[in-house]
């Protein structure tokens, strides 16, 4: 068990060494980076926004139902919505969702290329296939996804405002007072840093599983599943470590 875990870690590091080398042609790298930014980042905007708006609304509702004591000001509904969104949901939960969405996409895409010998074809030509295929994905997700976190945070707060306005559980001004209460801007930085780290994990780990796929289409499916499971576990561990380090 430990031996195979170490073996996998070693293979991962060897792959990363191949990935983080100078691209064969920079112009091609920049073009690939744009393509991947659209594929992995822009195309995730809708799902992140939809989930965030509902979660923001639900957090506001739950906070309001649980703050029954007359000694606790109602504005804490806004405060709790903000803190939950910024500290955990917009980074960790969104990353777990993205692990399912883009992680499986990457693992199956690269895995299919592996079993249909497209990666071998690149290697035969002298192209560093790991660098060509994986580096743009890692850079695109690591740079762009922190903005997805920001989007999720803003949309989540908007969801909270929407439900407050529609149901009247508290007044809108109480909600906004809560949003501004003891606001610590470095929480946003903390959350963006977490998201960048999670994005690195998602792209590199799922690429690793795809790159080392073998056999047929069933194995590509298995690689994809393994990639998502591994990403989720590593994200949770990274979350713990980063929280200890950054807060």
């Amino acid at each position, binding site marked *: 068990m430990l031996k195979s875990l170490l073996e996998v870690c070693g293979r991962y590091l060897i792959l990363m060494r191949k990935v983080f080398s100078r691209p064969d*042609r920079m112009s*091609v790298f920049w073009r690939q980076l744009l393509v991947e930014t659209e594929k992995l980042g822009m195309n995730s905007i809708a799902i992140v926004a939809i989930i965030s708006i509902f979660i923001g609304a639900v957090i506001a509702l739950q906070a309001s139902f649980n703050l029954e004591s007359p000694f606790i000001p109602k504005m804490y509904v806004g405060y709790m919505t903000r803190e939950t969104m910024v500290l955990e949901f917009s980074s960790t939960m969104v990353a777990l969702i993205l692990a399912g969405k883009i992680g499986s996409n990457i693992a199956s895409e690269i895995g299919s290329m592996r079993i249909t*010998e497209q990666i*071998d074809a690149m*290697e*035969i030509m*002298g*192209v*560093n296939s790991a660098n060509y295929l994986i580096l743009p994905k890692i850079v695109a997700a690591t740079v762009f996804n922190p903005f997805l976190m920001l989007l999720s945070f803003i949309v989540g707060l908007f969801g909270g405002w929407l439900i407050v306005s529609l149901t009247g559980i508290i007044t809108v001004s109480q909600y906004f007072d809560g949003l501004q209460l003891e606001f610590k801007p470095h929480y946003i930085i903390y959350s963006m840093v977490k998201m960048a780290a999670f994005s690195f994990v998602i792209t590199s780990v799922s690429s690793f599983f795809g790159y080392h796929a073998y056999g047929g289409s069933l194995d590509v499916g298995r690689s994809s599943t393994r990639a998502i499971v591994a990403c989720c576990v590593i994200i949770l561990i990274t979350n713990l470590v980063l929280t200890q380090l950054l807060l």
Partner: protein
Amino acid sequence: MIRASHISKSFANTLVLHDISAEFEPGKTNLIIGASGSGKTVLLKTLVGLHEADMGEIWYDDTLFNRLPFDRKKSMRKRIGMLFQGGALFDFATVEENVMFPLTMFTGQRYAEKRERVDFCLKRVNLVNVEKRYPAELSGGMQKRVGIARAIALNPSYLFCDEPNSGLDPNTAILIDDLIHEITQEYHITTIVNTHDMNSVMEIGDKVMFIHQGRKWWEGSNRDILYSDNRELNDFVFSSSMTKQFKALSNR
């Protein structure tokens, strides 16, 4: 010329290639034949560097290929073209982009120059008006031809073909065989073709090497096969009763 000297390769304690030595001459279509599982694909992939040989040397002209440092091996690869069994065309790219890929990666050419070369290569493999199509929109034979066009885009000195006509009808298979043969002679390329298609062997086999149980079992030209008394080779090549009769007639 490509020269393999005492090549051995094993996977997880299973010896797949055993002490194989061979010479593959330029301008000739060199065929590796053998039953499924005999080790011919492993041999081809070892020769091309996709697998590391456990023992032995692989020479590309005067260069000891399998001992080259990574960077030099990489630059050497620009002189290698390979046609894969399934075509291995990039799904994400059109035919034009597939053939242009090595040019984009390794030449500083402008688009017009690359386009000209792509047109030339596609015309050479008798493909027209398919530039904007994706591989999934092409037939098996067309995919193989695009694969050949991509393989010759950088004017390779060495061409490797892994079962180039598997899955093709006999007529298309012969077209692909002829194309490989013509290109080999035209550009004086060292071509190694991995096949178990006997039509190919008889059509284009300037030099044929028979692999059996991971060993080089027999070597000669396609004509020599007709007169060989090697039992394993005859069992493989003349497996049906009709071909056995043909062999008997040839030997008369």
